[in-house]
């Protein structure tokens, strides 16, 4: 029961520890496979080799000093920040889309808080035993056994947290070297600080705070309600079936079979409490849909196990929609996507993924920025010619050294003077600066409003890139 703040004794309510019982079933299997897959990716990806000419052989490397992200064959530069914006947009829309369809699937199966808490509970279970053993251990005074088991659990948690933190920094430098440096005291201060913070926060969030993160810290759980619709699938307790006319009741003699129970007006719920015992956030799903529920489906597994053992039909707790449950005769629950909101999210998702894919696939091999030098805008030369100057910055985004040729369109070919650098060779990931002077006779200058500067990677005329620039002269209006 939730109590109002005014009724509580203090402003802070002491946490009642949640000691969950393990359970077997479809959702448990799904959760475990997601956990194994996610951990495999997170912990092993930094160790995946990938040969490169100019960077460490690591498939995924966030090279902050070099100001680039190396993702397999793709190099992402700060200029590509739009991709990050698109990615975040896609992630947000995907979240809304999935939540509208099947509720808090992210919370229940994919959120790192859920994954790490699940893993930490698994450690706790392996060291301290099943729920009754843990409850007994919790209640007994501090003796040798309790010290060893609880201490061991926390030690293993800290170890897992440390490796989590270490793995995070492995993404930012060549992992084998960084690992060596880290334990020989050679790594940068930032590495130790990051690992320290991540170790402590992982330990605190997944070991100590657990469901309090979801309940009190995470904003998503609180605004999920605006994404839910009556058609949204969520973990529901079929109260009509479970409670019937006279409520739930234990399966005592005389009320063990469905026929007996229905005759007495009892519901199908045998009030075993298993759904509460397996719940990682410590709620009773039979109280209805509530904000603490992370939709992990473990109570469904638990209930189905009990239903099977009594040979009752499964699905007393199941994924269903409020709309379906309210029908006189609920149909088989299914994903209902034919809604304006869902279709809208879906279309936005497809468009954005398409745009991101297109943008990545058609990225140029270099970036260019052309600025007219504005102090002075123009210079009158000794023979009366007008000279404008331009600064051209070229960033090589390709994986190899490249020579760029600079030329002009719309002015006489000999008007442009690039000094010593008619072509410039730039190392991968580097920028080069070229000054271009353009000199026009007064009459040509008077009729030239703008012209094009063309930058062509040598040997790749198809990738040429042009930019219009102004040409200023005395007496000319902008």
């Amino acid at each position, binding site marked *: 029961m939730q109590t109002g703040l005014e009724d509580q*004794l203090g402003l802070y309510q002491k946490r009642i520890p949640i000691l969950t019982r393990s359970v077997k079933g479809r959702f448990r299997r799904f959760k475990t496979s997601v956990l194994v897959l996610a951990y495999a990716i997170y912990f092993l990806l930094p160790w995946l080799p990938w040969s490169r000419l100019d960077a460490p052989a690591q498939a995924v490397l966030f090279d902050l000093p070099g100001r680039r992200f190396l993702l397999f064959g793709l190099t992402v530069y700060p200029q590509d920040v739009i991709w990050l914006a698109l990615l975040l947009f896609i992630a947000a829309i995907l979240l809304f889309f999935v939540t509208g369809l099947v509720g808090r699937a992210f919370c229940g199966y994919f959120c790192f808080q859920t994954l790490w808490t699940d893993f930490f509970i698994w450690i706790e279970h392996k060291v301290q035993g099943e729920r009754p053993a843990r409850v007994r251990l919790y209640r007994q005074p501090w003796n040798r056994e309790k010290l060893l088991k609880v201490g061991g659990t926390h030690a293993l948690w800290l170890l897992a947290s440390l490796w989590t933190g270490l793995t995070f920094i492995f993404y930012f430098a060549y992992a084998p070297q960084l690992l060596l440096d880290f334990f020989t005291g050679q790594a940068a201060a930032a590495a130790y600080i990051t690992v320290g913070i991540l170790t402590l926060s992982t330990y605190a969030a997944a070991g100590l705070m657990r469901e309090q993160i979801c309940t009190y810290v995470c904003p998503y759980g609180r605004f999920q309600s605006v994404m839910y619709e009556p058609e949204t699938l969520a973990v529901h307790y079929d109260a009509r079936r479970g409670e019937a006319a006279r409520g739930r009741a234990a399966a005592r003699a005389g009320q063990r079979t469905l026929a007996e129970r229905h005759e007495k007006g009892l519901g199908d719920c045998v009030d075993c409490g298993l759904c509460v015992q397996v719940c990682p956030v410590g709620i009773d799903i039979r109280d209805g849909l509530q904000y603490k529920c992370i939709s992990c489906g473990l109570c469904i597994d638990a209930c189905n196990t009990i239903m099977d053992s009594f040979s009752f039909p499964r699905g007393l707790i199941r994924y269903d929609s409020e709309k379906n449950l309210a029908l006189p005769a609920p149909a088989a629950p299914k994903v209902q996507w034919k809604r304006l909101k869902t279709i809208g999210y879906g279309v936005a998702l497809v468009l954005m993924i398409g745009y991101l894919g297109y943008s990545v696939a058609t990225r140029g091999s270099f970036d260019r920025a052309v600025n007219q*030098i*504005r*102090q*002075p805008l123009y*210079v*009158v*030369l*000794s*023979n*009366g010619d007008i*000279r404008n*100057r331009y600064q051209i910055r070229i960033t090589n985004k390709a994986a190899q050294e490249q020579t760029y040729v600079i030329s002009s369109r719309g002015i006489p070919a000999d008007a442009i*003077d690039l*000094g*010593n*650098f008619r072509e*410039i*060779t*730039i190392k991968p990931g580097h920028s*080069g*600066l070229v*000054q271009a*002077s353009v000199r026009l006779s007064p009459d040509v200058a008077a009729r030239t409003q703008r012209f094009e500067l063309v930058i062509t990677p040598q040997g790749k005329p198809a990738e040429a890139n042009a930019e219009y620039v102004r040409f200023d002269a*005395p007496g000319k209006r902008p």
Partner: protein
Amino acid sequence: MSEQKLQSQTVQTTGHAWDGDLQEYNNPLPVWWVYTFYATVIFAIVYWTIYPSWPFGKGWIGGVSNITYVNSEGETRTHSWNTRALLLEDMNKAAVAQKPYFDKVEAMSYDQIAKDPEMSGFILSAGKSLFAENCAACHQAGGQGVIGFFPNLTDDDWLYGGSYEKVHETLMGGRRGYMPAFSEVLNGEQINQLANYVASLSGIAHDAPKAAAGDVLFHSETAACYYCHSNDAKGRQDIGAPNLTDNIWLWADVPAADTAVNKVAAIRGVITNGLNKGVMPAWSGRLSPEQIKVLTVYVHELGGGQ
């Protein structure tokens, strides 16, 4: 519980009474306030021990935090924490970071620097900030100068020569441009004739007969203009005498004058009064040799070089 506590409390007063019944409540401070206050006291004491705090005698208590830096003479100095030492420490770090580049500048020839893309990039940025700090006060931020006062460095005309060596010479030793006031030796009509002649050299509308007379005067011993500006009026770079036949004006503000008459008048003004303000200070000794070398390449590049 907390509500019960509040209800059971009777309001305390300080015990004073004024005017018979005026009393003062004695409400305790909120606990969070008191502890925050204690925390600020502790913070202050910790702060005093780390950073400079109290005046003491003729100095002050320096605190335990020190800043060590190397000053411009290469001596290592340690001070108690202060923002000046902090700045010197930063400047020193920046100087150390720049040193490899300045060493390269020292070792390389002008041509090598200009043709090395990496060094060119360094010249563009380091030269720009050196120019902004030392030169822009007169020559303006972009080197465009001010007509009547400071030469434009971005055009293709060089008073004293535009080779690397000449630009370097100008920077090291400074320059002094001088032209006598011809009102002392010529009358107004003669000056007018000379002005028309100079206008004719640059294709500005002029009085042809006066210009012809000016031509004679220019090459005569009376005015003796050709001594400095040379026979063809193209000037002499060895003494910084400007070329009078091109479209570039430094002293007479011809481009700003709207009519031909005013343009000639502007030229007349310079001949009449002469000028003794073309002074550029010497930078040798004020800037390091490498800094002057950077500026040499930067200024050379500004005008496209020679």
